[in-house]
C-alpha cells in the first residue's frame, strides 16, 4: 500500500477492533482514521494486567483482537465527554507489550518508537503500532464520543477506559513486516557533519 501524500491526500478509514486481514495490509506511513472501540491503559494499568496474567486471573477486558491506546486523560468539564486526550510515551510500555500481544492484543496507539523486542512480536503475531501527535490533547479529544471506566478506577488518570472514537487520526509506525516509520523518515532528513 503506497504512502499517501500527507497533506491533502486521503486517509484510510478503519474500524477497531481491527480485522486481521486489514492489519496485514497496513504499512508504515499509512494514514488511518480509526472509528469504533479502543481501550485506554498506561503504566500502572499495564503493571496490574501483567500481575493478573501472572496469577492466572481473568483480565478486566477481553484483549483478543483489541486496540490499546496509551493515554491518561485530563478530567472532563461538565458537559464534556473527556478532557485533553493525547498519547503518552509508548516505550514505557515496551516491557509489558509482548505478554499482552501473546494474550491477544493486536493494535496499539501512542507516541515515540518501540523496542526491538516489540517490533519482533508485531511481526510474529501480526499486530500493528500506530502513532499520533503528542501534545495535541485538545484536538484529539474531539474524536472521542463515549467514555466508560472499565477497571482500576482508583488509579485516577491511569484507570482502564473503554472509548468509542470517530475518525481518530493516526499513522502506522510499525507494521507486520518489521517496518519502522521513525527510522525510515529520520534517515531521509538526517544531514551528516553532525559532530
Amino acid at each position, binding site marked *: 500500500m503506497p504512502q499517501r*501524500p*500527507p*497533506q491533502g491526500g486521503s486517509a484510510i478509514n478503519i474500524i477497531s477492533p481491527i480485522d486481521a486481514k486489514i492489519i496485514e495490509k497496513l504499512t508504515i*506511513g499509512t494514514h488511518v482514521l480509526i472509528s469504533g472501540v479502543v481501550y485506554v491503559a498506561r503504566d*500502572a494499568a499495564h503493571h496490574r494486567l501483567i500481575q493478573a496474567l501472572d496469577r492466572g486471573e481473568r483480565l478486566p477486558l477481553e484483549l483478543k483482537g483489541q486496540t490499546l491506546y496509551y*493515554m*491518561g*486523560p*485530563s*478530567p*472532563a*468539564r461538565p458537559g*464534556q465527554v473527556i*478532557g*485533553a*486526550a*493525547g498519547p*503518552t*510515551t509508548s*516505550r514505557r510500555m515496551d516491557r509489558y507489550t509482548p505478554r499482552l500481544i501473546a494474550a491477544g492484543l493486536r493494535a496499539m496507539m501512542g*507516541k*515515540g*518508537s518501540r523496542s526491538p523486542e516489540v517490533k519482533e512480536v508485531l511481526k510474529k503475531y501480526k499486530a500493528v503500532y500506530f*502513532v499520533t*501527535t*503528542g*501534545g*495535541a*490533547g*485538545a*484536538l484529539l*479529544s*474531539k474524536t472521542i464520543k463515549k467514555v466508560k471506566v472499565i477497571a482500576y478506577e482508583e*488509579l*485516577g*488518570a*491511569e484507570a482502564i477506559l473503554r472509548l468509542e472514537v470517530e475518525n481518530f487520526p493516526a*499513522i502506522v509506525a510499525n507494521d507486520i513486516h518489521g517496518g519502522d*516509520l*521513525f527510522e*525510515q*523518515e*529520520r*534517515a*531521509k*532528513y*538526517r*544531514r*551528516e*557533519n*553532525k*559532530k
Partner: protein
Amino acid sequence: MREIKASAITQAVARLCQEANFVLGEDVLSALKQAHKTEQSPLGKEVLSQLIENARIAKKEQIPLCQDCGIAVVFLEIGQEVHINGDLNAAVEEGVRRGYAQGYLRKSIVSQPFSARINTKDNTPPITHIEVAAGDQLKIIVMPKGAGAENMSRLAMLKPNEGQNGIIDTVVRTVEDAGGSPCPPLIIGLGIGGTAEKAMLLAKKALLRKLAEPNPDSEIAQLEKEILAKVNALGIGPMGFGGTTTALAVHAEVMPAHIGSLPVAVNLQCHSARHKEAVL
C-alpha cells in the same frame, strides 16, 4: 516593608496553573508557525499544523493543551522588602490544589514513587524554587512540566578539558537518544557550570526565557546557535516523524564552576512549553 497576604499568592498560583495549561505563549505559537513554513518533511509539517490548531482549540474551549498537565514547578522571586502574611509554602500548595481542581487539570503526582505510587489526587506537592531579590515585589512563575520531556533530561559531569565539544556532544546525544519520545520540536534548556544540582536548575530556568531570545553573552549565544544547527541536522523532526525541526531553540545559562568540574545539564522541554508569570 510591604505586606503581601498568603491568600493573594494562592489566588495567583491557582490562576497561573490554569492559564499555563490553556494558553500557549505567543512566542511558542509564532515559532511553531515559522517552523511550519520551513519544515521540509510533509509528516513534520502536518504535526506542526495540528499543534497550531490544538493551541487554538485549547485556548477557546479551555481544554488543556496536553492531557499531561504536568508537575507544577513554581518559581518565586521574593523581594527582600516583602513580608508575607501567612504560610508561604502552604499558600503555594493550596494554589496548585485549587488551580488543578478548578481547571479540570489532570492530577499526575504519586507519593512513594518507587513502590506504592499512590496518586495524591490534587497534584500536590508542587516543586517550589525560592530566590530572594531586591525590591518589594513578589514574582511568581508557574511552569507545568510534563513527564515525557522531563524523563529524557540528562546530567553529565564532564572533565574540564572536554570543553565546548564535550558540551555539544552531550546535548546532541541526549536529543538523539530521546528521539520522538519527548515530543519534539523541543526547547533545549542547557545549564553549564555550578554544581550538579545547580546546573540542572540553570537548565530549567533557561526554559523560562522568551523563546529563541539568545543569551546576551555572545560566546554563549554562538554555542546555542551551533548546538541548534547540529540538533536539527539529526533528522528526528516533529514527533520523531522525520524532518528538519527537531528543536525550536537552545537556551543556555552559564555560571562559574570548580577547577575540577564542568557540569552540563540538559533539561528538555516539549513543544507544549507552558509557563506563566505574575508580579504581586
